[in-house]
């Protein structure tokens, strides 16, 4: 099976102009591939750059070197050099992301927040809302919260909204940043089940997962991130 996502020699250094141009190397020559059905887990101590890898793939961070190839509409696109419009198209149809933060327009009801990625793909409103409701139900978010904006939700509730947003559309590639961090055992089991279903359908996933039980349940392979020598 051909990989859905390939990172080749990606390098990233932050230059902090406000701190006298201090340079912080974070990634130097990282490479890996993720095939359909695989959930590759990035390993390494805090601060080694695991979240940076996910953000670089999603395009929220630029990279200085290397290629980030993703299979989009049947062709491989290099996200490291793609135009913003291409990256947006990849995000709409191909690449989903469960981040640790929920950033949404204030005062928008949760069910609409969840349906939004589907609406962006051109799905009609009613089926999109229906699908959003069924996912929220599956993730055991109490029904009385569906029409309330998520701003006041607990960490675990917001996390489930984020998960619902990422699973509402069948993204062929998913990035997961600690998707079970704020969940109890029962909710974690549901997320594990959702992830396994998606993997069986051929999704490729790249995850950061400190939660050992979730990791044992879904990881198919580990990639060790070596720290960059900050002294250089």
């Amino acid at each position: 099976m051909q990989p859905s996502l390939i990172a080749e020699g990606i390098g990233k250094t932050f230059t902090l102009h406000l701190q006298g141009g201090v340079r912080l190397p974070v990634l130097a020559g990282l490479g890996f591939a993720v095939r359909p059905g695989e959930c590759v887990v990035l390993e390494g101590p805090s601060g080694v750059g695991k979240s940076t890898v996910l953000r670089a793939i999603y395009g929220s961070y630029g990279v200085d070197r290397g290629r980030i190839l993703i299979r989009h509409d049947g062709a491989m696109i290099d996200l490291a050099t793609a135009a913003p419009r291409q990256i947006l198209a990849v995000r709409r149809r191909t690449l989903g992301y469960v981040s640790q933060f929920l950033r949404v327009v204030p005062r928008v009801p949760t069910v609409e927040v969840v349906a939004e990625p589907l609406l962006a793909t051109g799905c009609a409103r009613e089926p999109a809302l229906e699908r959003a409701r069924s996912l929220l139900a599956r993730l055991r978010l109490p029904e009385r919260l569906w029409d309330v904006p998520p701003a006041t939700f607990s960490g675990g509730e917001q996390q489930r909204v984020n998960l619902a947003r990422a699973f509402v559309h069948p993204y062929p590639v998913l990035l997961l940043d600690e998707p079970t961090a704020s969940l109890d055992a029962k909710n974690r089991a549901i997320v594990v089940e959702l992830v396994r279903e998606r993997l069986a359908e051929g999704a490729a996933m790249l995850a950061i997962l400190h939660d050992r039980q979730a990791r044992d349940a879904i990881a198919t392979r580990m990639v060790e991130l070596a720290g960059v020598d900050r002294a250089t």
Partner: protein
Amino acid sequence: MSAHDLPLLEVRDLAKSYGGLQALKPTGFELWPGEVLAIVGESGSGKTTLLSCLAGHVPADGGSVRFRLREGTGVDLLQMAEAERRLLARTEFGFVHQNPRDGLRLNISAGGNIGERLMAAGWRHFGRIRGEALAWLDRVEIDRSRIDDLPRGFSGGMQQRLQIARNLVTRPRLVLMDEPTGGLDVSVQARLLDLLRRLVAELDLAVVIVTHDLAVARLLSHRMLVMRQGQVVEQGLTDRVLDDPQHPYSQLLVSSILAA
């Protein structure tokens, strides 16, 4: 190739000086249908000058602004005769002012404010115009019973929503917005943001929005231009400019936001 593969707007070397001051150094960008481009920067950065030149409110000194007509051909807005340009502006463009009182006629009714644009676009049947005005009041969440009221008595948020309805009723393809949430209370801003986002998606609008509020830019825009001293110092995906700014000035701008 579908219409979505071609830019709606292609701006090249657009420039403007006031006396000896280069308010806008030669600037270019492209904009596609369905895309929201935020222009951010401090006062005096040239962002409002850029918007004013695009809108034709002030004449540019040079450059070109190519706009793709519905049938596919491109026209340079800067080279068009004024009358021709006005005709195009009535149907194809919208302009949302920061202060709704600059974009509304306060001495005619809410329905009249919406209907006026339709009449300018050639609508004649009173019943249909009124029906469309009612539909737009619904869309921007203003109670239908207010159709015959003067907007003078509306709250700031309602006036802003009415201005948006007045602009969008003719289904323009390009909308320019100057700090549309600027003068509003935060709670009113949120509602307007939600409304704008929905309308942009539903109507497949292309939007250029000038704002100094980076949170508004993050939630509303796909791409961003950062301006300083009359020129674009950085541009790209909105979240990349905000999360991984490269230019010293962008880094200063982003690091100066107070986290709520």
